[in-house]
């Protein structure tokens, strides 16, 4: 499996999630897409920078996703800026940023 697959998967997931929210798609597709986006994407964008062994990678992917979202959500709540959409936007930005960083590192390493 190419190292590009995971960052590409994250980028595609962000696009699909954003499209499903914008289009107002209902159950069961949107809950599945949203669960995948929230439980895996931000962590999956960052985890390969730390580990690539599958067990460590998925451990980091899931736990970092949950941790990042809890911390962001609490920050929005206690600052009086609560908004699930804002939370999703920041999570999407982290996912896109991490995935892009991975792709850049791969391209640099291959040159």
């Amino acid at each position: 499996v190419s190292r590009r697959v995971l960052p590409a998967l994250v980028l595609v997931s962000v696009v699909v999630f954003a499209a499903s929210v914008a289009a107002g798609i209902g159950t069961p597709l949107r809950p599945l897409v949203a669960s995948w986006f929230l439980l895996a994407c931000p962590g999956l964008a960052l985890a390969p920078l730390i580990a690539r062994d599958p067990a460590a990678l998925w451990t980091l992917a899931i736990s970092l996703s949950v941790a990042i979202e809890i911390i962001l959500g609490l920050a929005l709540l206690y600052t009086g800026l609560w908004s699930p959409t804002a939370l999703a936007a920041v999570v999407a930005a982290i996912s896109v940023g991490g995935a892009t960083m991975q792709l850049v590192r791969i391209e640099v390493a291959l040159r």
Partner: protein
Amino acid sequence: VRALAELSSELRDDERILCTSNAAFGERHGRLAVLARGHDPHEPGLLAITGRRLLFAGERGGWLVLEREQIASWALSPTPGERTELWADTPAGSFAIYDVSARLLELVEETEPAKPRQSEPAGAAVALPSMRSVLAVAAACLAALMWTLAVARVEPNAMGDAGLVSTLPLDGFLALALICAAFGATLASRGPSGRLLAVQVLALVFMLYAVPYLVGGEASFNVAWRHVGISEYIAQHGAVDPDINAYFNWPGFFVLSAAATELAGADLLDVVPWMPFLTNLLYLAPLLLIARAASDDPRLPWAAAWVFYLTNWVYQDYLSPQGLTYVLYLALAGLLLTWMRGQRRSALLVACFLLVLAAVPSHQLTPFAMLTAVAALTMVRSNPFRSLPALLGVLIVSWVVFAAGPYLSGHLETLKDDIGHLGSTISSNVTERVDGSETHVVVTRVRLATTAVLWLLAAVAAWQLWRRREWRFMRHAALAAAPFGLVALQAYGGEILLRVYLFGLPFVSLLVARLVFMRRDGTGWRGAGAIALASVALLGAFLVTRYGNERVNLFTSREIASVERVYDIAAPGSVIVAPNPQLPWQSQGVGEYRFKTLDAELEPGAESRPAADSLAAAVVQVVERFSAPAAYVVITRNNREYEELFGAPEWGTIAELERSLAESPRFRRVFDNGDGEAFAYVSPSGEGEGR
């Protein structure tokens, strides 16, 4: 050694490593990224040659698997005095591996790689799965299908005091026996495939933890309904109010569930039946990581995960802060156990800090469990970050003092009384729980016995491994023992021993799997039979320990409808009273209604219990304390089931309550749908009467 284990786990059933060599992944050209992942420049690792493939596992996670057919040519450059290089050309480009041993080079020279077979039709090179693989997957699928069909026929209303096991059809038991036999056969085979073990473990997780959905699809367990209500409050108000509920002092989980519900466009109650299955899936990767840190045997992580899922009966994987923060706990333990050598130290430290930072405001107990785990690893000199215990301590104290201060000041006396009082803690956790109907007492005793047997087996395993000087397991033994430190801190509402069991379970499972499932003579049919029998024994206990309370956990659609009817008629500010907490309520109207139970309001241990015919008067006293515009008493099927299972409370029985309310002029029955009924409170002046 870890790299060798990783390589071994990648081998196919009939594939053997011919030779290995330390090596470093070197240069590559062309489009080799298509074939390789993780190949950092000059990453050291292990190179292996099998009859058919070349495999490389790097120390930093680099990984390469190449079929011999994909290698067009080999070129060796064993120049004396220089590092030895192995060059290979592939259709996707070329690559070099440095520092290869001379023995491996000899082997490569003896074994000329096969050229691509031009004459064979397309697709002929695709290896067909072996018959054993097909049977293993088929058995797992068949078992899951049989189980689904069997559990779907279970009728919640027909359940006895032993729970699910009392109404499970015969084919359900056969399905469980089949998955145990299949796992035994796979684990005991020589060189079992990690993929096959994964399929069977996933099938088991589905079978054991999707039960609430398969039985009827209604959200079960009254506490999950309460958690839905807390999430809904945050979604509606964008704020927390610790005066309403203590949960708002640790809102991390609820913030995430509130946001997820809105982003998913779903009703959180629809997700509740799936949560145990989903949550246990999230546990799998850290469980494998934890087990891999103990041994290089690729079978052990799957065996440990198997034992974990067969013994995770404490039912904390529902929609709950404990269920989600447990993922963070497992991840922290796995990462600390795995990164002993300080690779990517700063990035790992940041990751651990984030896990801890998220856990502290999300759950009262999990941060303390993290603290005991980190302290235990520090004591056995296996904590790569010595500052972590202090950091955790500072975070916990800061949160409790600054964010959860009001809760702390209100409960300081209770918390202070719990510290160090082992006798009362054990009493509230063990002896007071062995109560209720005769069958329920048996269920409770099976729970205690299962727990004791598992802890005993883990202790025996730890002792044996100590004597064999298998020191890597000692870190896991320390983590299995660490949660007992929580007992000295507090009783946690009579649940602390359950949580000790839960926090120690990943490590206890590993030790038990090592002792029972990974014996040296554990291969072949005898080994398969022993593993299957041990699994069946654990599974038999699991059905009773996990689903022994299912009679009161599952709700019918009519009792859900009865509570919704109360929401429809109750004005904001109303008091809603139930005999006990076992009903599907509080999923909406948190902060709008006051939810009270007679178990809590008519305090146990009161000097005199109200007479049966004056229960209505006692309820009047309760509702008039709150000066509410209206009040309702709701009684559902599950309130009665709860009373039958756990015994009647000191204030009286539900039958007496119903009779007293029906005869009292201060209450009027507003509906009764068979599974739920409600009485409206009538004030002396006739004002404030419920609709």
